[in-house]
């Protein structure tokens, strides 16, 4: 038991990434407000990014900016590059979701997903 707890504290970046994922998923599932759902989705995104980048970290290494003539350890550059792509895709998805939310508010007058479903089911 103690060993597992020590291991979890040693891997605290991974652990916090998982906890943030669960919090974001909980926000996405239980809140019926659409903007809250978008914020929860963003929290899930950042949790995945944190997990990926912390996998590439090496103790005592520096960022991969080459200095000629200096021998030092560099971190793994591949997760950083992949996540740089992911951040831009995340903001694209957020912008599209927000424009859909604005149009939904114009036609239904509410931001509540349950309310919108009720209005939709009462329509002929």
């Amino acid at each position: 038991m103690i060993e597992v707890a020590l291991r979890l504290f040693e891997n605290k970046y991974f652990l916090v990434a998982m906890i943030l994922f669960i919090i974001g998923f909980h926000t996405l599932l239980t809140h019926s407000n659409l903007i809250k759902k978008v914020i929860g989705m963003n929290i899930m995104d950042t949790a995945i990014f944190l997990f990926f980048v912390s996998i590439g970290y090496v103790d005592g290494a520096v960022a991969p900016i080459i200095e000629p003539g200096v021998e030092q350890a560099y971190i793994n550059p591949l997760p950083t590059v992949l996540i740089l792509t992911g951040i831009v895709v995340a903001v694209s998805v957020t912008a599209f979701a927000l424009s859909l939310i604005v149009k939904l508010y114009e036609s239904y007058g509410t931001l509540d997903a349950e309310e919108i479903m009720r209005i939709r089911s009462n329509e002929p």
Partner: protein
Amino acid sequence: MEDLIVRTISRTLVPFIQVYGLYIILHGHLTPGGSFSGGAVLGSSMILFALSFNLERGAKKLSHDASTVLECGGILIFAMLGFYGILAGTNFLTNLKAGFYPGVPGEFFSAGFIIFITVALAFKVASTVITLFYNLIETEGEAHD
């Protein structure tokens, strides 16, 4: 927002933010940064300008036509530079083997087509950010409470 303090501070700060954004873009192959971060900084500075003065004056700075040219031109320059690799007899999007100017690593004019792609993508990202913001906050329509 018609506030004197916000206006004065943002009028002083916006040129510095834009110079910093241009620095991030142009030194993307030497220091941390690159197209996406620099473009986002440039776009945020324009949004700050438009928010602290008024939105109509800010919207004139980037018209719809200019936004269209930047959006399509960014991808077009990227693809054209890629097709140059095919013309030179190598693969799509080949950098140094296709005959771009290699330069000395560490100097400003080096690394082949990387600097062109970075500048084109950065202006595309900046234009995307500004256009999305203006179209989301545009005050026409009846949805207010």
